[in-house]
């Protein structure tokens, strides 16, 4: 699905966010990315969903070189990639139904999109998507009145409506109550299994990544630190990945054996 060859992203000519990264993701794969804040995960995601172009290197999506795309063809490829963000990615003043249906924008012509703002064009579709994420009753609520977890579900419903081939989830649970985090991660995994989507997720929580994903990639300083099946990730790998973080986060250096009770609110996940 994705093939990255020495992809780099440099901001303002000096801040190297992603550094000559090679990566191959097959269709239907489920993988998690972990690493400290500032390791380049979000930048990588913004390149994967065609929001920003790489500074150098080639990024192929389904054998298409995204550096050569523009205009309509660029939008067609974007349509095949769905993104769930960390937070604040919905339009707060719109009703939930419009936020969900905005997943259809890539497929709708302009007049249809505008008319739908007056009278929702495919309200049943939105209702169905919301049912799948468990909040169908919120269809006509104003989005800003929903809680963080509910908003994240709306964002997932939008992705369902978009019906992409790949789902990218950029720390989808870091702004959500920890108790609900596992639920949302599971939901995304189930949905992508049901509909045979490729799923790539950035996660802050190592536990969630190791518990739910067959393949886990550790990212450090814009480079891949390890790329292994979850079962083969050891404490040493994690220590290297999180080494050198400041005192405050040092306590958070995760280990497989003893999850920190405060940080991890899903004890059942660490078998």
């Amino acid at each position: 699905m994705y093939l990255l060859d020495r992809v780099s992203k440099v901001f303002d000519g000096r801040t190297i966010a992603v550094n000559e990264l090679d990566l191959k993701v097959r269709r239907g794969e489920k993988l998690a990315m972990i690493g400290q804040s500032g390791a380049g995960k979000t930048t990588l995601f913004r390149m994967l969903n065609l929001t920003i172009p790489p500074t150098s290197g080639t990024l192929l999506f389904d054998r298409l070189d995204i550096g050569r795309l523009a205009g309509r063809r660029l939008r067609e490829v974007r349509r095949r990639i769905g993104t769930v963000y960390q937070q604040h990615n919905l339009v707060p003043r719109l009703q939930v139904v419009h936020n969900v249906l905005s997943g259809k924008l890539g497929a709708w012509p302009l007049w249809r999109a505008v008319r739908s703002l007056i009278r929702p064009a495919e309200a049943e579709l939105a209702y169905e998507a919301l049912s799948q994420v468990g909040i169908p009753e919120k269809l006509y609520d104003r989005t800003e009145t929903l809680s963080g977890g509910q908003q994240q579900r709306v964002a997932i419903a939008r992705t369902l409506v978009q019906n992409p081939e790949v789902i990218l989830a950029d720390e989808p649970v870091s702004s959500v109550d920890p108790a609900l985090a596992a639920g949302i991660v599971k939901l995304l995994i189930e949905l992508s299994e049901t509909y045979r989507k490729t799923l790539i997720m950035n996660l802050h929580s190592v536990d969630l990544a190791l518990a739910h994903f067959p393949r886990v990639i550790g990212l450090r300083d814009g480079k891949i630190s390890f790329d292994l099946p979850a079962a083969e990730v050891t404490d040493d790998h994690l220590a290297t990945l999180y080494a050198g973080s400041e005192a405050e986060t040092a306590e958070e250096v995760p280990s497989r054996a003893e999850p920190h009770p405060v940080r991890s609110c899903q004890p059942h996940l660490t078998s």
Partner: protein
Amino acid sequence: MANTATQAARLAPPKGRDFPSASTLMIMAGFLTLMIWSYVGTEFSLRGLLGGESAAQIWTYAKNLFPPDLSKDFLLKTGYWALETFAISFLGTILAVVIALSLVFFSSRNLMFAGLLFEMERSRPWVRALRTGLYLGAKSTLNILRTVPHIVWALILVFAVGLGPFPGMLALGIHTGGVLGRLFGEVVENVETQPIEALQATGATRLQILFYGILPQVLPDFVAYTLYRWEVNIREAVILGYVGAGGLGQQIQIAISLFLEHRLLTLILAIYIIVTLVDHLSASLRNRLV
């Protein structure tokens, strides 16, 4: 590399804030100089205002104003003129919104050529030049509309279309269009980018993003600014009457030049009533809509 640089910056001790810095002192000194200069320049004089003869003159004039002319005939006319002033401000504001809306999106950098929506744009110089040209055209049009005062517009338009409320309404609309265009533009350039990034990532076109991501964010501010300008415009509509653009202002000018002081007071009261009315109307609309 860049990381250590930012860390070093964070560790540097904060600058002392015990004394006002040199630049603060400079600004204060400059402000003081400006105030003294303006004081001299406007020939400000309390004695001139309140002392001796002028105080007596003010008193005499104020006494002459009473009682207001409350004859039924004149009240009806005043009501008509007040309505005319109201109509000038109302239609003028609507015209202003039309002008502002038709130009504001072209005059917004983030919609025309810069930032998030253009990250993946392949560099085609002539397309970029065209967009920049449109942007500069819209921006400078709004600037011209705004920087020429409404009273100058009114003078020009009275020449062009004749006396009466019509040129007044046009003048208000044109000037306020420029003002609203600038205010709206700032709102559009400061929208939250995260929802827009998300919409773009679904494959939406820029126009779709405008309708789904930008308009819902900016419309409440647009409404608030428009109502506020309407409150300003009802007062400006009065002033416009002075150059022959109809409404209460024109009658005030007539009343002053013909020494009809009783009528003048009636007209001033009418202004008070209509301005207060519009302020309340606008405030209640704002509360309901925003």
